[in-house]
């Protein structure tokens, strides 16, 4: 079942409910669905945690997820992982959930709409300076923009904007193109090939979630550490 027409880009134009100026489209509904799954699932699992040797299988699942994300953050940011864990973990789980659920019939990934991915990229756009400022202080953070000298200021600003755009368009383009490929294949070779492409789509979805999060971590690492590295080198010379 395809609820998005083949000549629509993204699920924004599929409207479920409209009342005056409030329109509830498919993107919002499926975003709410994913939020509900994540929140209710986490509440149900963490309601009775055990610290002993025996634990429920769901707690084991959650511990594996949390442990893996934390060790990844530790490896890339190279800092105390707990400060970034809530933001990066939430981003990863949301994108992963929304990409992986695409094998459910009737579901359209909210990440195949440019609005969702732009919202996520804008979150990253504001979070990176925030982490940088809390780590280094406002003056030290702003000095980064004038390194190595003043001429580079516009390029730094341009880089911030263009990487936000590329984060948004990369996720959107990958997921949307995949849905279009499946829709076209359904029209051409109905039975077997779309299933194989859906299996490939799971891989692409997981990979894109991972890449979004890794790039976010790299940006955060650059915003929080570059000055420390420079200072360290400076000390080394003396």
């Amino acid at each position, binding site marked *: 079942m395809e609820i998005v027409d083949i000549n629509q*880009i993204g699920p924004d134009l599929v409207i479920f409910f409209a009342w005056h100026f409030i329109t509830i489209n498919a993107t919002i509904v499926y975003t709410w669905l994913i939020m509900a799954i994540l929140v209710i699932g986490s509440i149900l699992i963490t309601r009775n945690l055990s610290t002993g040797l025996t634990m429920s299988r769901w707690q084991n699942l959650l511990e594996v997820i949390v442990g893996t994300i934390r060790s990844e953050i530790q490896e890339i940011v190279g800092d105390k992982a707990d400060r970034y864990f809530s933001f990066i973990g939430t981003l990863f789980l949301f994108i992963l959930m929304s990409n992986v659920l695409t094998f459910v019939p009737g579901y359209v990934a909210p990440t195949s709409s440019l609005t969702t991915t732009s919202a996520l990229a804008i979150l990253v756009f504001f979070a990176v300076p925030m982490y940088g400022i809390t780590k280094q202080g406002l003056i030290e953070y702003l000095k980064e923009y004038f390194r190595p000298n003043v001429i580079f200021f516009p390029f730094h600003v341009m880089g911030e904007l263009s990487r936000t755009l590329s984060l948004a*368009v*990369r996720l959107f*383009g990958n997921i*949307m193109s995949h849905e*279009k490929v499946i829709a076209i294949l359904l029209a051409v070779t109905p039975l077997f090939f779309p299933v194989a492409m859906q299996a490939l789509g799971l891989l692409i979805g997981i*990979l894109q979630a991972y*890449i979004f999060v890794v790039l976010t971590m790299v940006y955060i690492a650059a915003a929080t550490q570059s000055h420390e590295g420079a200072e360290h080198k400076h000390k080394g010379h003396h």
Partner: protein
Amino acid sequence: MDSVSIVALTSIITAGICMAIGSIGPALGQGRAVHGALSSIAQQPDERNSLTRTLFVGLAMMESIAIYCFVISMILVFANPFWTYVIKKAGG
């Protein structure tokens, strides 16, 4: 030729050319990247995990260039702003 068919013709041809040329560069780049990663893995199989992770991130970043072209050609074919403008002009 009237302006409607000129816009349609240009959009379709441009979408095709955009996709065709835009996928050449990323394809060559990805080939080089996989080549480098494979020979590194062959030399140092112990480092396979970190090499694979870096390879995938790099591949996805190269892929995104082709994806930009794809998005532009999708916009040209399905959500063309010039097309709606021309249609509106022709209609009223």
